[in-house]
């Protein structure tokens, strides 16, 4: 039966069926043919999937991110990032990486970050920075991955929700790996820029006073991740409440401090958030049904048994799971992958003695990495679509960054402290 489910899912996927529907279609046989469960249970599972308090954080952070863009905070952050790193080799490329790190603190979605930066920075990187289109797409796409590890991250919320891992701990765990990835990508961008002669964006380092002024202007956005982490540490709020709080915070800044928020911008932010939310929640509801069907068929146990029959060496299991995630990441979109694959592989890993928070950081970054690889890479498609780059040219230009990501994964996998230091010390 498990093979039937997998086969049906693959079939509908290849036929171009929307993933949410492919999930539902694949799970129908379990309810209709075997008769172990009445099909009304499938409908009930869809309703229960929406009735999770931690899950409410997802729409909240999506809405908050869209609002932040509408308040004009983004332009101020671009300016700050530009003063901070624009004078380095690779200029705007470095700016885009740092901007992803800063934006990561208020927005949780790598795709949203990548498309925003491609529109905002892409054209001037090509016109003024000496970057080729493909090189621009590569640095923007890879930088956006940082967003997905810095709190608040939608991927980490989904991971915590579906696997019952503390979202607060996951958020804290993502901080150091996110910073590490930023440095790694900046070094890579520096080497690439030196070799290809990409120009710096600013002639020299800015005056300290100029930098300080820009810092003060951006303080509202820069302070947020700190407030978030302090709030978790002292138990002031949960992730969901923080999301609601961030929405009010963004509205307040937009209306009273920057005064850039107009009705039209507000309305667009609401509309975008609603369709984003509809897309991701339908996926979650259908994935919940399939997850239930797979559990009835003892899927996780069978897969655990299969893996442990191959090897009982924890390191080998980790390598196997990593390879599986890279492959599934190549074909499936991130949220679908987290909801579908992680409940199956996490038990295998925890049984082998790995910490769920450590694994969460590794798995979510691996899955996001899938968005940067052909044949199906959502982040890659988004950036290439906006800048008009072919995927073949993208992968060629991205080679140095693929190497950097490989280094990053090895480091995160081998050094648990990178992910666990902060959660252990603070919570």
């Amino acid at each position, binding site marked *: 039966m498990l093979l039937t489910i997998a086969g049906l899912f693959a079939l509908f996927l290849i036929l171009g069926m929307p993933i949410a529907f492919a999930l539902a279609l694949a799970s129908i046989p379990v309810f209709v043919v075997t008769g172990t469960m009445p099909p009304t249970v499938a409908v009930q599972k869809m309703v229960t999937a929406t009735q999770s308090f931690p899950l409410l954080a997802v729409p909240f952070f999506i809405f908050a991110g869209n609002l932040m863009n509408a308040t004009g905070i983004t332009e101020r952050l671009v300016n700050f990032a530009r003063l901070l790193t624009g004078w380095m080799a690779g200029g705007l490329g470095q700016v885009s990486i740092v901007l992803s790190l800063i934006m990561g603190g208020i927005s949780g979605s790598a795709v949203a970050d990548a498309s925003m930066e491609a529109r905002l920075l892409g054209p001037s990187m090509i016109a003024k920075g000496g970057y080729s289109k493909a090189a621009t797409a590569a640095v923007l796409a890879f930088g956006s991955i940082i967003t997905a590890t810095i709190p608040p991250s939608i991927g980490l919320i989904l991971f915590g929700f579906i696997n019952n891992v503390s979202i607060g701990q996951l958020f804290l765990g993502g901080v150091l790996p996110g910073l590490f990835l930023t440095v790694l990508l900046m070094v890579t961008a520096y080497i690439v820029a030196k070799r290809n002669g990409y120009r710096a964006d600013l002639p020299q380092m800015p005056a300290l006073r100029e930098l300080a002024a820009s810092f003060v202007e951006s303080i509202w956005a820069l302070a947020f991740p700190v407030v978030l982490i302090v709030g978790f540490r002292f138990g002031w709020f949960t992730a969901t409440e923080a999301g609601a709080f961030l929405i009010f915070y963004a509205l307040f800044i937009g209306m009273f401090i920057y005064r850039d928020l107009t009705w039209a911008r507000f309305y667009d932010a609401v509309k975008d958030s609603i369709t984003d939310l509809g897309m991701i*929640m339908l996926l979650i509801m259908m994935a919940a049904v399939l997850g239930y069907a797979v559990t009835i068929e003892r899927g996780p146990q069978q897969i655990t048994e299969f893996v442990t029959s191959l090897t009982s060496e924890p390191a080998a299991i980790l390598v196997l799971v990593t390879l599986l995630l890279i492959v599934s990441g190549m074909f499936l979109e991130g949220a679908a992958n987290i909801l579908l694959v992680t409940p199956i592989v996490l038990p295998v890993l925890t049984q082998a003695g790995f910490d769920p928070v450590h694994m969460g950081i590794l798995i979510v970054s691996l899955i996001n990495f899938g968005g940067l690889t052909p044949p199906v890479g959502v982040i890659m498609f988004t950036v290439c679509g906006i800048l008009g780059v072919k995927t073949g040219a993208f992968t060629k230009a991205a080679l140095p960054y693929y190497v950097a990501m490989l280094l990053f994964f090895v480091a995160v996998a081998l050094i648990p402290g990178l992910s666990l230091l902060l959660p252990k010390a603070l919570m």
Partner: protein
Amino acid sequence: MLQRIEYACAGLLLGAVVILVGIAAVTRGMGMPIIWSVEVAQLLFVWLVVIAADLGMQTNRHFGMQIMLDNVPSSIRKATEIANILVMIGLLAMLFYYAWNNTILIHSRLDGALQLPGSYYHGSMVVGFGLLIRTLLVQLFQRIRNWDEV
């Protein structure tokens, strides 16, 4: 027209959910928690989700894998897309039927501190599947009518 009503409903629901969760957090912080606040937020949320899912369908946000369809002759692609829509309508019709039965079945179950009937929650699925079927039927007719275009 219907789309504007749906956006308005979804927008109001989203606002209400945010405000209710905010109120719950603040009152809890002040030491006089309102229990029903989060409960109502979650009830509204499921309704928000079904409307948003339909709006997502109308704006083509429910993505799938395009790699096969991008590499076949356009007549095969169009035929497959139409077949996909038919399969989705079939699936949704089936789910609609079970959602209706389920809503009747679960009506007598009272939930949470407010003791709301379960049908308040589960009825959303009937409406949601109905809306999705309507949207897909519209898309189906559009595709058949525009068969000759690219």
